[in-house]
């Protein structure tokens, strides 16, 4: 419950940032919207009427209050360009984004677990060193450069896969691969270090001393505990996925939320940018909450402590 209360001001701050930003933007939104609706520059009388209708002459904080009250109900205003609700515009593009983000996340996690566990168990092996170099490169090569390199190799030189666009499954390979490679590194290193730490614990030594097969010790005893921080961290790479999808969708002309937002920036459609910030912020706040709850459920030490406190507090 306390966690929820802490997240409320953060969400309000995000929404305030989004709202204040649009008011910093050059140009008058009333003029922008009217010019689009009328197909000609609006007259002063029309502008005045429009301002009064939408309360654009009210004090800044009054306008923010009204906007945030609407935002809570999912009403993020209308797009300057299309005149349609911002929320609908964003949500209608979400399936395309999820189509690459979900497999991208899955591949990233599987890769991180597989390589992370092997690097920890076979410490200083070729795979361990390779994964360290790979992680370093993933931190240094921009994801759009990675994407272009993959296109050059697999599409231009080998001619195996399409360069861009949305279509059959072959269109998914490169975007998903880029997304997975760009986000897996930190998760992979965390899996490795977390497992290494657990392998030094006494219960692992005990399990080994009992003569259990090494594979059983690692999978049943060590990995289970090593994964606690990994699971929570997996949720926290959400930020990397937002950034990653925006870039990947731009490179591959993939018609998702990210590409739409970038296009909207060029169209000076602030309502969309505002909506995207609030949208991302809301998801982020919810994920943080979920991670906290998940952590409590996964780690018996925390769960017991919380239960004990509850029992004492009544």
């Amino acid at each position, binding site marked *: 419950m306390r966690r929820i209360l802490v997240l409320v001001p953060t969400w309000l701050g995000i929404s305030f940032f989004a709202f204040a930003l649009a008011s910093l933007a050059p140009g008058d939104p009333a003029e922008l919207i009217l010019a689009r609706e009328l197909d000609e520059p609006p007259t002063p009388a029309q502008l005045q009427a429009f301002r009064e209708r939408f309360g654009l002459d009210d004090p800044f904080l009054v306008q923010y209050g009204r906007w945030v009250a609407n935002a809570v109900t999912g009403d993020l205003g209308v797009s300057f360009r299309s005149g349609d609700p911002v929320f609908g515009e964003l949500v209608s593009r979400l399936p395309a984004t999820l189509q690459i983000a979900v497999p991208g996340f899955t591949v990233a996690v599987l890769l991180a677990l597989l390589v992370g566990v092997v690097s920890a168990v076979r410490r200083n092996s070729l795979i361990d060193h390779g994964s360290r170099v790979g992680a370093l*490169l993933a931190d240094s090569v921009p994801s759009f450069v990675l994407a272009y390199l993959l296109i050059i190799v697999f599409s231009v030189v080998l001619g195996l896969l399409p360069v861009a666009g949305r279509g059959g499954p072959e269109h998914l390979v490169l975007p998903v691969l880029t997304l997975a490679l760009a986000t897996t590194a930190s998760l992979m290193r965390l899996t490795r270090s977390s497992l290494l730490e657990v392998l030094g614990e006494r219960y692992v030594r005990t399990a080994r001393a009992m003569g259990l097969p090494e594979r059983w010790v690692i999978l049943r005893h060590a990995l289970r505990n090593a994964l606690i921080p990994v699971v929570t961290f997996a949720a926290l790479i959400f930020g990397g996925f937002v950034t990653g999808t925006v870039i990947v969708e731009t490179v591959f002309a993939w018609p998702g939320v990210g590409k739409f937002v970038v296009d909207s920036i060029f169209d000076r459609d602030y309502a969309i940018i505002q909506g995207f910030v609030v949208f*991302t912020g809301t998801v982020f706040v919810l994920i943080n909450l979920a991670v906290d709850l998940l952590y409590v459920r996964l780690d018996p030490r925390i769960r017991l402590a919380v239960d004990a406190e509850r029992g004492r507090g009544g």
Partner: protein
Amino acid sequence: MAVESSPEVGDHAATRRAWQAAPGRRASVLRGLLRDRIAVAGMLLVGLFTAAALLAPMLAPHDPNAVDATVRLASPSLQHPLGTDELGRDMLSRILFGGRWSLGIAAAATIAVMAIGIVVGSVAGYYGGALDTAIMRVVDVLLALPDLVLYLAIVGALGSGLRNVLIALIGVSWARYARIVRGLVLSLREREFVRASEALGARDRRLMLRHILPNVVPPVVVLASLQTGGLILGLAALGFFGLGVQPPTPEWGTMINQSRLFLQTAPALMVWPGLAISLTVLGFNLLGDGLRDVLDPRLEPDR
């Protein structure tokens, strides 16, 4: 005992010790870095690209913006060691001059962000109270969203170009510094040498400048070396979207944006700036890891 009765003497003694220790400590940091092969590789890469950017006017074989229609999209040759772009501009010259923009903007932003982070973080940590709460709320908001989303939102509202890119980079990145500095100041306040100085009647300003600041700077430098790579990546990403420094300026990210139309016919236009960004960022990441190991093993990057 005389030392305790006279704050002046005590302070001077401490300051003198600090001064005497400083060069030795600096030398040992350098020795530590040189022992670390990874840090050396990082320093070499950063040094190489910085030198190339600084000496660009002397090293570049051509004017980076000189258009030559007779050699469009040329392959590497003695005349043009890295070939030419779609307007016949010399690629090597553009990469060299591009370093001035990419590294220069990142350096300017890093310095600004360090200064803001140290001042804001110190004020929050030292005075506490409502001011601290207010500052940390702002920091929470800035750290809650991915950097690139904030950059896009700011540049989206203000428009592209050098000034707004700087506003975006600085306006977002100071938060991480402020949070770390605040934590450092909070713990320093409780340390004995600060409490002692305070009990002896030292003023706030003196405490901050003499005792707190010198202990805050080293970890901030480590943080800066770890974060500069991220700033270069952020700048490059804005350039890639076409929202950064505008063409014909040879900023690396902007060059990649310009190369997109020629990806299939002339992939080299993308590869060279891509390589320049990657190697520079790699250099900073290696250097940052090395510095962290030598200076402050406790300071982990927050992601």
